[in-house]
């Protein structure tokens, strides 16, 4: 499991770990039932306090994203799919919020943004067709 910590941007490390694990589950890089590295292994890999990893795992467990099993390992929750959808929604909503804030600051309104999104979609579709016709 690859996790990249950014020390300078002020986001607490346990949150960075939580967000990246959630993102990897939402994007399918971590599968339901997959075992996460032990707290100590991840702490040594990332060179962070094991308590920080323990906190990230604990909060992920409370949120139902991961589950502890009898063998003391931590696993991606099996009931992953509805939750993954919730997580995916949350992630995409965070990006939409950021997009809207920036758009409004630059003086675009919602209609402008929707039109631009549709335009981008058309461009992507067009590009895909081009690629297909070249194959």
């Amino acid at each position, binding site marked *: 499991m690859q996790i990249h910590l950014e020390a300078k941007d*002020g986001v607490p490390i346990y949150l960075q770990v939580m967000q990246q694990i959630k993102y990897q589950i939402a994007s399918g890089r971590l599968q339901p039932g997959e075992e996460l590295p032990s707290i100590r292994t991840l702490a*040594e890999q990332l*060179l*962070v*306090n094991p*308590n920080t990893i*323990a906190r990230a795992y604990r909060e992920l467990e409370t949120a139902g994203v991961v589950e502890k099993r009898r063998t003391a390992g931590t696993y991606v929750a099996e009931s992953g799919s509805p939750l993954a959808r919730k997580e995916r929604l949350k992630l995409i909503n965070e990006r939409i919020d950021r997009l809207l804030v920036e758009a409004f600051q630059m003086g675009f309104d919602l209609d402008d943004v929707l039109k631009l999104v549709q335009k981008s979609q058309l461009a992507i579709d067009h590009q895909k067709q081009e690629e297909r016709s070249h194959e």
Partner: protein
Amino acid sequence: MNNGNSTSPRPVVEIRNLNRNFDQKWALQDVSLQIPQGGVFGLIGSNGAGKTTLIKHILGSHYAQTGSVRVFGIEPVASPVEVLSRLGYMSEDRDIPGWMRVAEIINYTRAFYPSWDPHYAEELRELFDLDPKARIRDLSRGQAARVCLLLALAHRPELLVLDEPSSGLDPVVRRDILTAIVRTIAEEGRTVVFSSHLLDEVERLADRIAILHEGRIVLHEQLDVVRESFHRVTLRFDEALSEPPPMPGAIERQGRGQEWTYLCRGDRELLLQAAKRLSAAVVQESSPSLDDIFISTVNRN
């Protein structure tokens, strides 16, 4: 694993109202600290802030002129053997006798510690790729640091004290030192105290920090609490201002015209309410890094 919170029984290090001066110059002023068992305590401060002087009190190499120092509940100056046998120490100076060979310094140091674990010492020696026949004076700076680290760890101390351990070392050796800290803390109940001016190391490893500035403790708190109590907000006012209005807990203000950025300590809600009262829009909000917190706290004091 311990959460490093205040539910731990007795603090491993307890310092009360410690004062120290050298030649009429204050080195420590009214320092009080509690270091709970089972966590990593990061001591932050600029050069000359008093970090090493404070650490030397923990080791018992300085006596408390006024106030008190207790380590494991014991006074280190009065009972140095009881304290030092349970403590591992590595300093920035790494002063070990240059004429000794690696194997000799290991055997020599072993004699001082009843709890010395020869298998662990050997494991570390191999891990660090240290030649037992090499003379200390011929070692590179990084290898010498690894010898010191081995000597500090091999008796599996209850308290590991590292004074600027990674100062002047390359990233590979720094990684060894940080790994040693992580391993030490992962073993039940052990405590690490380390001083550093590399704040990203402190941010990664410490669960509790103290900022020392000109001999005084200006901040002493769990790192999570520190993080939650500092906020950076950029406000946009209706009109250009030559002087930004005061905000609750503001310790730094920067900007010009309509946009001003504040670094504040305190409750985030109060901050947002104050912004609302000034009919200012919050255009950006972030958590400051430990670097920013350190610089602004020190400047303010």
